[in-house]
């Protein structure tokens, strides 16, 4: 990274110095400004959240600050240079150049620090209790506790990005070739957490080094033949995580209350008494091919189309994902007052399935246990999306427009709303023989979205304007998590809690969830009103108000609602030629509900 920055700086300075020399004999020019200064900072209490994007490492030292802005050129070249330096962590450099021979180039570098919070986990401290005969709490049984292995840790990400792009006009044609490269790096330390065997009983955190790098190469060609414009672009993206992972020792699985029943508790774990890494992320590769076409049909309008193919590979698991996308658009002016735009998009996203292979539940218990809970994970990313948009713009009168738009979107997912794997008991035969496996199955596959939008905008002479927008969205079977909350007895004769005694030993999983949950609406109304007005030559005011009401009354255990109200006003005024004010206020109020069914202690 630093070599590239050095090379870019040298190139920028060489280009700048040449015209400075030429400027002496009238062949070039250069203008701009240079700033040199210093700054010093101090903090009190905890500066991490207050200075979320401030370099906190060099506080109380005097730091140099510099800035340079240049715009210059020669008879054959124009260029701009921008440079800022605030401290070692906060700096940027931009360089752009255009030549008469049809070559343009742009390079840039940005760097800043992002400070992150430290969760002290102190809320993870509780213990189960009973009540004695006199009504007093008696602590005992299971508990939740935490371990922070880095209690004094400070967490931050140093973000750096370099990019360079070059475009070259091909001789004697309207064609161009272009290529570019960008590299993002993120380094520093973050807090990583993990949990022990039973979720939330023991939460442990440690510092984890961050060393992530994303490289993107892209190249392509574009050109015009008659009234058609064509472009092809290839993009390659590689992500590397070169940091190590912290490790955690998962303890022997012993029942927290009845410690002697280790085997019973262990039957629900697939590993114990072992040290393993956690917080690991996978390297990945991505290749993208894109072809785009645009045809000018003169008075008959404009036609656009594109095809994109993407292939992604997770280098750790070798799971592969592919996306095919086709889009098309048509725009035409029907008459002086009406304009129509139509767009169509369809894409398919498919990621490999993955078999989650688990040891049999209570394999030692061949009478009531030894049950196979393996399941095939279908990626939630898998989907086929088809979407159409119609947009009609009507010029009602001079300075008054009415716009209607309609979107129809159909999302078809294999993994939409998978149920859980369950067992049904016949109450006669023990163990596997009497338990029928009910595989996970889709609750619904298809989500259909209809969105209608109406917008009216008008000018108030030369002094102002206002617009009003209303949007109604109806969603048939929005994405949800089915059978995710609330629980009841497993169905089946003789199952626990329905009178059967034999299956009492397996009550831990003999419960099934049945509540559907989502934060996606089945209906939504959105209103937006905004306007601006020049009160006098020295004062203008603008204001807005947004209100939306979302609801989903198709759920089986509660009705989801979300309301948002957001007004704001800005005032610009110049009481005199020497004084200028901009004042503003805005507010956002959001209220929503959810149905919580949290697992507590033993589920």
């Amino acid at each position, binding site marked *: 990274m630093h070599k590239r920055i050095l090379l870019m700086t040298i190139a920028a300075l060489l280009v700048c110095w040449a015209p400075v020399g030429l400027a002496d004999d009238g062949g070039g020019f*250069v*203008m*701009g*400004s*240079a*700033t*040199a*200064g*210093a*700054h*010093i*900072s*101090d*903090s*009190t*209490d*905890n*500066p*991490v*959240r*207050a*200075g979320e994007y401030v370099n906190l490492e060099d506080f109380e030292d005097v730091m140099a*600050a510099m*800035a340079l802005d240049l715009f210059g050129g020669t008879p054959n070249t124009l260029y701009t240079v921008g440079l800022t330096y605030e401290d070692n962590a906060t700096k940027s450099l931009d360089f752009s150049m255009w030549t008469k021979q049809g070559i343009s180039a742009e390079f840039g570098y940005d760097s800043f620090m992002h400070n992150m919070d*430290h*969760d*002290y986990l*102190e*809320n993870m401290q509780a213990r*189960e*209790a*009973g*009540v004695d005969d006199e009504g007093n*709490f*008696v602590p*005992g*049984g299971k508990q939740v506790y935490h371990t922070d292995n880095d209690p004094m840790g400070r967490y931050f990400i140093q973000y750096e990005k370099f990019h360079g792009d070059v475009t070259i006009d091909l001789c004697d044609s309207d064609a161009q070739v272009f290529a570019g490269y960008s590299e993002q790096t993120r380094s520093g330390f973050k807090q990583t957490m993990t949990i022990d065997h039973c979720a939330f009983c023991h939460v442990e955190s440690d510092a984890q080094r961050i060393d992530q790098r994303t490289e993107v190469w892209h190249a392509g060609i574009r050109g015009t033949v008659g009234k058609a414009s064509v472009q092809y672009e290839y993009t390659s993206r590689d992500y590397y995580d070169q940091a190590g992972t912290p490790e955690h020792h998962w303890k022997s699985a012993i*029942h927290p*209350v*009845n410690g002697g029943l280790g085997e019973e508790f262990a039957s629900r774990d697939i590993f114990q008494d072992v040290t393993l890494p956690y917080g690991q992320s996978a390297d990945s590769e991505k290749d993208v091919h894109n072809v785009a076409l645009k045809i000018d049909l003169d008075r008959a309008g404009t036609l656009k189309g594109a095809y994109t193919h993407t292939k992604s590979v997770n280098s750790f698991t070798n799971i592969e994902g592919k996306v095919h996308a086709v889009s098309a658009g048509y725009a035409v002016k029907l008459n002086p007052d009406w304009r129509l735009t139509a767009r169509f998009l369809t894409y398919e996203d498919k990621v490999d399935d993955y078999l989650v292979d688990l040891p049999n539940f209570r394999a030692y218990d061949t009478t009531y246990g030894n049950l196979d809970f393996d399941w095939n994970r279908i990626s939630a990313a898998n989907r086929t999306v088809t979407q159409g948009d119609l947009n009609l713009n009507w010029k009602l009168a001079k300075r008054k427009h009415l716009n209607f738009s309609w979107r129809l979107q159909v999302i078809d997912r294999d993994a939409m709303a998978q149920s859980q794997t369950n067992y049904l008991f016949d109450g006669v035969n023990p163990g596997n023989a009497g338990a029928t496996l009910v595989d996970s199955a889709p609750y619904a596959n298809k989500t259909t979205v209809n969105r209608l939008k109406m917008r009216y905008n008008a000018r108030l002479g030369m002094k102002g304007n206002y617009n009003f927008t209303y949007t109604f969205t109806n969603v048939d079977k929005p994405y949800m998590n089915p059978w995710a909350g*609330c*629980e*009841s*007895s497993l169905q089946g004769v003789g199952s626990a809690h*329905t009178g059967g005694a034999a299956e009492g030993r397996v*009550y831990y999983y003999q*419960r099934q969830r049945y509540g559907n949950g989502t934060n996606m609406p089945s209906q939504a109304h959105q209103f937006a009103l905004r306007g601006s007005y020049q009160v006098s030559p020295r004062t203008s005011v603008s204001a807005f108000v947004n209100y939306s009401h979302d609801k989903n009354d198709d759920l089986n255990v509660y009705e989801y609602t979300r309301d948002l109200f957001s007004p704001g006003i800005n005032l610009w005024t110049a009481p005199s030629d*020497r*004084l*200028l*004010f*901009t*004042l*503003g206020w*805005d*507010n956002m109020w959001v209220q929503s509900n959810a149905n*919580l069914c*949290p697992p*507590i202690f*033993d589920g």
Partner: protein
Amino acid sequence: MFFVNANLTASEKVTFFLEGVYTIAKGSFDPFDLPLPDDIPADVQISPDHVGDSKGAYDFTVISDYSDLEYKTLEGTLGMNYKLDKRASLYGSVNLIDLQDDQTYVYGDLTGQIITYATGMTVGF
């Protein structure tokens, strides 16, 4: 959120500028209860190793208080430019970031202040 931006040209050589943003952010949950599933009576032992009955000693009445969040943030800059001649000027500024954490859960007390003094010279060419 309130914001103000002001510029005062005090004389041909001196300009003052002021920028300020004051933000109040609040968040909370309503109190909630956790009813047992219909098929589990509230007065039976829920499992062999559970201390207490199925309702247990679980008390959810104060949990909603732990979710309260309230931050007040003031960020402001007061500065001055002094024009030396047509091309050169001096500047000086004070920047303050003040965050007040009124609900100190999860991340501890995040209250903190940062003050930065800056000065320098700009030359145009």
